[in-house]
C-alpha cells in the first residue's frame, strides 16, 4: 500500500489522475473502519488532511462554499448562522471525537444513504464541487447520488467543496436513532424554506438506496403556501396540510427492513419527522415575518 500525502489540491488531483484507484482519506471515520476490519485493502491512500484549501470556507453571492475538509465541529461553531440546517445535521453526527474529524466531503464520498449531511444538502439546493486535472465542475446534489454508495464522481475526480445557498430562512433537520450520540440514522429528514423562490426543499435520508428529495411533498407545500399568499402573511398551517405533507414525504421513501428498523417503521417515522420539522420551520418563519 502507498500513502500519498499531497500538500495542495493541484498535487492531489495529479496523484488521483495517475492513481485513480487511490482511496481519499480525510477524517478517516469511514475509511479507517474498513481498514481496521480488513474489509478493504486499497493500493493507495490519498491523505487530504494536509491541504489547507480544503479546510476553508467562504461566503459570497448568497452561497457558502464549504471546503470538503471542513470538519463537522467547525460547521457547528462557524456556520450555524449561515447554514442552520447543515449545522443541525452536523450536531447529530457521531460524537465530539467524530465531529472533530469527520467532514461533509467524506460524507459525500462515502455516499451512505444514511449520511447525515445528505438530506440537508438536497433540501437546501446545494451543489457538489468536484475537480480533476481536467477541470472543476459543479454537480447539483440531486444528481450526485446514483445508488447505494455510488456517486457521480469520476475515478480521477476529488470532491473539493459543497456550495450551499444561504437562504436566510428557517431550516430543520430531524433524525431517528436509539440514542443521541453515535447513531446511524434509522431515518432522517431535512426541510429548507426558500421564501425568495416561493418554494420548499424537503429530503429524506436512510430511507431509500440514496438520499432523495420528496418532490411531491415539496410541490404540494409550495402550492399551499402560494395559495392565500402565506409567504407574505404567514399564519399557522392547517392540520390537514401538515398531515398531507407528512404522508407525501413518507411516500417519497423506498425503505428496506434492516437491523436498524423496518420499512414500515421508517415510513411512519418519516411522516412524523416531516410534520414536526415543518411545524418548527414554519413557526420560526411566522415569528420572523409575522
Amino acid at each position, binding site marked *: 500500500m502507498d500513502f500519498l500525502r499531497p500538500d495542495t489540491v493541484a498535487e492531489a488531483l495529479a496523484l488521483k489522475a495517475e492513481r485513480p484507484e487511490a482511496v481519499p482519506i480525510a477524517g478517516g471515520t469511514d475509511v*479507517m473502519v474498513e*481498514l*481496521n476490519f480488513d474489509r478493504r485493502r*486499497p493500493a493507495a491512500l490519498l491523505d487530504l488532511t494536509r491541504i489547507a484549501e480544503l479546510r476553508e470556507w467562504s461566503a459570497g453571492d448568497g452561497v457558502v462554499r464549504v471546503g470538503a475538509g471542513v470538519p463537522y465541529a467547525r460547521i457547528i461553531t462557524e456556520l450555524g448562522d449561515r447554514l442552520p440546517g447543515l449545522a443541525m445535521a452536523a450536531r447529530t453526527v457521531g460524537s465530539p471525537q467524530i465531529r472533530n*474529524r469527520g467532514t461533509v466531503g467524506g460524507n459525500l464520498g462515502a455516499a451512505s444513504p444514511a449520511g447525515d449531511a445528505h438530506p440537508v444538502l438536497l433540501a437546501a439546493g446545494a451543489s457538489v464541487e468536484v475537480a480533476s486535472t481536467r477541470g472543476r465542475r459543479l454537480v447539483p446534489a440531486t444528481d450526485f447520488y446514483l445508488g447505494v454508495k455510488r456517486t457521480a464522481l469520476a475515478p480521477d475526480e476529488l470532491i473539493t467543496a459543497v456550495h450551499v445557498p444561504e437562504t436566510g430562512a428557517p431550516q430543520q433537520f430531524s433524525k431517528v436513532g436509539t440514542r443521541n450520540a453515535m447513531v446511524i440514522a434509522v431515518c432522517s429528514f431535512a426541510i429548507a424554506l426558500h421564501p425568495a423562490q416561493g418554494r420548499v426543499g424537503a429530503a429524506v435520508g436512510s430511507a431509500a438506496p440514496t438520499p432523495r428529495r420528496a418532490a411531491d411533498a415539496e410541490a404540494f407545500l409550495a402550492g399551499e403556501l402560494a395559495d392565500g399568499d402565506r409567504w407574505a402573511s404567514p399564519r399557522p398551517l392547517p392540520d390537514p396540510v401538515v398531515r398531507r405533507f407528512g404522508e407525501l414525504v413518507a411516500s417519497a421513501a423506498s425503505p428496506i427492513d434492516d437491523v436498524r428498523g423496518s420499512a414500515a417503521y421508517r415510513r411512519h417515522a418519516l411522516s412524523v419527522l416531516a410534520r414536526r420539522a415543518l411545524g418548527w420551520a414554519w413557526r420560526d418563519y411566522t415569528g420572523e415575518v409575522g
Partner: protein
Amino acid sequence: MRVRLTVNGEQRHADDVWEGESLLFLLRERLGLPGSKNACEQGECGSCTVYLDGLPVCACLVAAGQAQDREVRTVEGLATGDPARGDRLDPVQEAFLAAGAVQCGFCTPGLVVAAHDLVERVPHPTDREIREALAGNLCRCTGYEAILAAVRLAARWKAGR
C-alpha cells in the same frame, strides 16, 4: 514508511509503519504508549481518545501517516512530571480517583482525555455539557454516575485553582 510526530511534547518516530495502520496501533505497539485503549476500532467507544493538534479524536480512526508532523497528546501526557515519584496527576485524574470513577478501568484513559478537554474549554460545565462531551465514550461497567461526579469535581478544582 517512517512516521515522525510529536508525542507528549517529545519528537518521536517509528519505522516500518504499515500505510494502513492507525495512530492507535502506532502509539501502543510502536511507541510503547499503551494508555490509549484498543476496543472497538470503529470510533464507537472512545477508549482510544487522544489529542491530535489539540482536538480530541479517536486514534483508531486516524491513519498513522496522517499524524506525520502533527502533535499528539495521550493520557500519559496529562500528568506533569512523574506520578510514580510523587509528582502531580492532572486534576481530572485526581478527580477520577477521588470520586471512584473507575471500575474495570478500560474506558478510563479515553474518558480522562475527553473530560480533560471539556474542563480546559468550559470552566463551569453544566451536566448537559458534561454528558455531551462524554457522549463518545462508553463505559461497559455503567459507572457513569461516578464519572459525572468526577468531571464535576475536576471542573470545580480547575476553576478554583
